[in-house]
């Protein structure tokens, strides 16, 4: 149990992609109440993910996590190598989902976990595929700005908001 919390803390120190704002690491049900996700914070502001609410809603960690502290691995593909009964040390997304898996180095000389897990989504996609995939099923929010507030850099990038094309430009596209 304590290991899981420790792993989370290590991830925080290394990549700073996710900062755990509040954690209760010592009880049986070890999980952070809120997770600040700011991997996209250039175009969008970080998301204060209400982890506690999602725990209440799903009641089972494995709805979102492959590895959990409470239940064994569920996928038949994981169970072939990973002991389905055993709890895992690595729980948080960024422990396994790298933000930049397509480094030249990794493409030509894959790290061991990319030899077996060769189709592992990057961190940004791991979040979005998981969140939007489920939200579609349960009628949760799926629009970009339902979860993220766009920054000024985002408006510039999308040519939206104050950077939106002027009305006169509209008819000019052939």
């Amino acid at each position, binding site marked *: 149990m304590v290991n899981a919390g420790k792993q989370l803390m290590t991830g925080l120190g290394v990549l700073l992609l996710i900062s755990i704002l509040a954690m209760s690491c010592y009880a049986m049900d070890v999980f952070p109440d809120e997770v600040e996700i700011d991997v*996209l914070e250039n175009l969008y502001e970080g998301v204060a993910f209400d982890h506690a609410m999602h725990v209440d809603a799903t009641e089972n960690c494995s709805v979102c996590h492959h590895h959990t502290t409470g239940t064994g691995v569920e996928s038949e*593909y994981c169970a072939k190598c990973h002991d389905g009964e055993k709890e895992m040390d690595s729980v948080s997304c960024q422990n396994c989902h790298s933000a930049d898996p*397509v480094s*030249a180095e990794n*493409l030509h000389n894959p790290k061991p976990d990319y030899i077996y897990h*060769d*189709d592992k*989504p*990057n961190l*940004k*996609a791991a979040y*979005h*595929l998981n969140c*939007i995939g489920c939200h*579609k099923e349960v009628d949760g929010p*799926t629009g*970009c700005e339902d979860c993220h507030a766009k920054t000024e850099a985002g408006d510039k*990038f*999308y*040519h*939206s908001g104050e*950077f*939106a*094309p002027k009305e006169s*430009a*509209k*008819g*000019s*596209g*052939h």
Partner: protein
Amino acid sequence: MSKISRRKFLAGSVAGGAAVMMTPAQKSFAAGSFEGFPEGMGVLVDLTRCVGCRTCEAACNLEQKLPAPALPFDDTSVFDEIKHGQKRRTTDKAYTIVNRYEPKGADEPLYRKIQCNHCNEPACLTSCFVNAYKKTPEGAVIYNSKVCVGCRNCMIACPFHIPAYTYHSAINPVIKKCIFCYDTRLKEGKPPACVESCPQQVMTFGKRKDLMKIAHERIKKNPGKYVDHVYGEHEVGGTGWFYLSSAPFEEAGFDTSLPKEPIINNVKDFLAIVPMVLTIWPALFTGFHLLATKGKSHGHGDDHSHDEQEGH
């Protein structure tokens, strides 16, 4: 870079024109059979993941320094645009676009990102009689706009209707299309801007042969989710960017009538219909050349050599 001097080009097209005149079926100026690059990079595009956010379009616009769009990139009304009875297509100002499709019986729409597919044996390349196109060992199909004469053969030859034409420059009209971010990213081993920007990792970048295995693995692990076909594995001799879909490909606007063989044969057929053009072109350009070099002594054609080096 292999560029050709204007004089070499003229000599080549004269020979080509003559060959076509006599034996249209044995076209001699094209690249002929091209083997592709086994270590070339590719992109696996999984339509089932796309949510139609158009972030990839914005990323391409920024990376390729394209003009500002007519509508913001987060405006989804573009999915309803129909021009000449067709959904949006790539243009000289948008090297990639995302379209929405409503497959029969599906309860949600399918989005499809369109850009150059970086064919193993590109029809644009084989149809180009000034050799403006090049397939790089990294897998990109790029072109040299200094050499392009704006003849638009490649527009007609491309089975995916990708190359677009700049109508805005009458002086130097050239073809424009997605270059796999070759100059700024691919040649350094980096993934293209659109691939990197996508929140859903609809596109996975890697060696084409590795990605093909992953594509088949995804189908095998999720037989109910995907149709059992990788579009682009064999179509027109194989493409560098290839696709997985949950609906039959024709329902997502793909042309499923394309042959497995490279399109070169069809190009030949097309060219055989208009040998006239090819026979008058050399004369035309010889005329231009004479005009351009009028008053200059023979054998003193070095005026082009500073930016058009000979050899390979």
